[in-house]
């Protein structure tokens, strides 16, 4: 490349996780030409897309934005943020935009801001589906209109092209909606002529910040340097380092395939990549290949479906604990009968589950015969019904049984430990991802809307 390797500063694995000012200063001193990070993922569940809210508290996001916007303005390099507000829906982007505007005022800076929205219109998606442009990824099947309608919000995970267009348009700050983690980081290098294989691979290695380093809790970010023959990665924290294992092992992380990563417009193939120690703190990676493919965007859709009410008790009664599986089965049956007896058919297709924390709550499997009894269990009651009101009524119907159900019917009624009154908590809807589909497009920007806010103009006005 004409100007030598392109260096990108990835300050943290996710905006709000805790960027470190000294690390950012180090990366810029090393010649970083852009700061890039994602701000979310699907990992924490569908609630954040369905509700359009962030998982992070506002303060932690504002803190990171303050560090990054200040550094970006002082160095005159762009700040690129993807999957804004955890889920990257339009509301999540707007939440982040408002914080950015507040920080800009506080720092007295006037950046040109590009907002990239990738939330999708349901009617448009139905038309594309009818035209055969949407196909499922395993384990889901073909998409139907009812599934599209069931979603509260649907986003398309953008590739790098909308970001490249925004950079060409002079953006100082880009706030993207849902985007692949890698595209956010790869876009700057791709725009400036870096080879595709190393650009995408470097972005994948850097997407979780210090996760690809040896001492993962030492520092927050990494610096990637992409050249004609490969890329190098080093931690931003001077007392940390990368080695070939820490870097190559990151291809395993949250990926179903460690060698091939599907992205909009192609597949990154690292099966022949070579990872070598470049110096004490850096690893050099060569041999990464980008295979262009027809352009597709992955869709994510979050639905709010049925409603839940929960209750929690603690049990230390040694007789119950010595017979905990029997107790669980008897109590569950009694609770179901209680609902049938007191609410009847109006309860609808309700569901109750009891999760025994301290015994088998995480798996739900029965522990093997002979497993010693626990000293205490927490029992989480979860009622699911078609409405919040019904889930709540079911919990209330179950309340006396749940808190006082005896192991042996001829004994005095026990009282299990509960900590709150009222004891039942309306938890809200069950939020689920409904889509695992890709949509084919002719133009990478066709599902994306770009909105500009130029604070320089607003100042002049």
């Amino acid at each position, binding site marked *: 490349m004409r100007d030598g390797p392109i260096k990108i500063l990835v300050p943290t694995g996710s905006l709000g996780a805790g960027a470190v000012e000294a690390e950012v200063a180090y990366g810029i001193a090393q010649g970083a030409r852009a700061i890039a990070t994602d701000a979310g993922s*699907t*990992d*924490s*569940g*569908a*609630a954040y897309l369905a509700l359009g809210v962030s998982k992070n508290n506002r303060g932690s996001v504002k803190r990171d934005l303050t560090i990054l916007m200040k550094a970006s303005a002082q160095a005159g390099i762009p700040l690129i943020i993807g999957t804004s507000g955890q889920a990257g829906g339009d509301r999540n982007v707007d939440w982040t935009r408002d914080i950015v505007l507040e920080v800009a005022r506080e720092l007295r800076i006037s950046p040109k801001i590009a907002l990239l929205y990738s939330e999708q219109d349901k009617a448009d998606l139905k038309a594309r589906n009818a035209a055969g442009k949407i196909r499922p*990824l*395993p*384990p*889901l099947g073909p998409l139907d209109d009812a599934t599209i309608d069931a979603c509260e919000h649907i986003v398309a995970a953008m590739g790098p092209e909308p970001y490249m267009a925004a950079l060409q348009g002079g953006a100082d700050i880009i706030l993207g909606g849902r985007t692949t983690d890698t595209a956010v980081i790869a876009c700057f290098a791709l725009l400036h002529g870096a080879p595709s294989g190393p650009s995408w691979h470097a972005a994948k290695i850097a997407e979780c910040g210090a996760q690809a380093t040896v001492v993962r809790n030492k520092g927050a970010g990494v610096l990637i340097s992409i050249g004609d023959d490969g890329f190098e990665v080093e931690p931003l924290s001077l007392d940390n380092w990368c080695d070939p*294992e820490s870097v*190559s*092992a990151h291809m*395993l*992380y*949250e*990926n*179903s*395939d*460690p*060698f091939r990563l599907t992205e909009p417009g192609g597949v990154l193939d690292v099966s022949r990549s070579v*990872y070598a120690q470049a110096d004490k703190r850096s690893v050099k990676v060569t041999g990464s290949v980008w295979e262009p493919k027809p352009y597709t965007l992955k869709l*994510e859709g979050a639905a709010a479906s*049925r409603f*839940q009410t929960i209750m929690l008790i603690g049990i230390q009664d040694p007789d119950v604990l010595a017979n905990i599986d029997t107790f669980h089965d008897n109590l569950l049956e009694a609770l179901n009968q209680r609902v049938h007896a007191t609410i009847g058919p109006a309860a609808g297709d309700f*569901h109750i*589950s009891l*999760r025994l924390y301290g015994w088998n*709550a*995480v*798996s*739900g*499997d029965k522990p093997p015969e002979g497993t010693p009894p626990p000293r205490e269990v927490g029992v989480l009651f979860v009622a*699911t019904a078609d409405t919040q009101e019904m889930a709540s009524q079911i919990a209330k119907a179950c309340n006396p049984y749940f808190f006082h159900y005896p192991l042996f019917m001829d004994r005095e009624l026990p009282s299990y430990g509960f900590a709150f009154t009222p004891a039942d908590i309306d938890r809200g809807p*069950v*939020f*689920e*991802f*409904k889509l*695992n589909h890709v949509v084919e497009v002719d133009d990478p920007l066709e599902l994306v809307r770009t909105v500009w806010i130029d604070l320089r103009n607003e100042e002049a006005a």
Partner: protein
Amino acid sequence: MTTVKDVCRHVRSKNAGPFWVTVDLFFDGEDNYARYHDSAALGPDLFARLYGADPALVKRFAVPSLHVVKISYPRATSQGGMVERDMHAGQQYVRLLDVELDAEAVS
């Protein structure tokens, strides 16, 4: 009999998107990796039995440079559904630790 936890220095599980779980088994060295990475006991049936996964969709990768076997399986119920117990799937690996491995590999 040798179990997963006898020959792995680290085992982990995590979501790979909302519909898949991926498990990484880091063997404790070249010898045990060579002996057990192809073990039939870690086949698709195990993931059907333990996790209710469709065995036809279970994917398995050997990563010799890291002494890692990576296995990815579709979730029986999607992330965050009515009966969710492990949103990140971060605890799912534990049930693999006591799986008995056969050195006579069938690949």
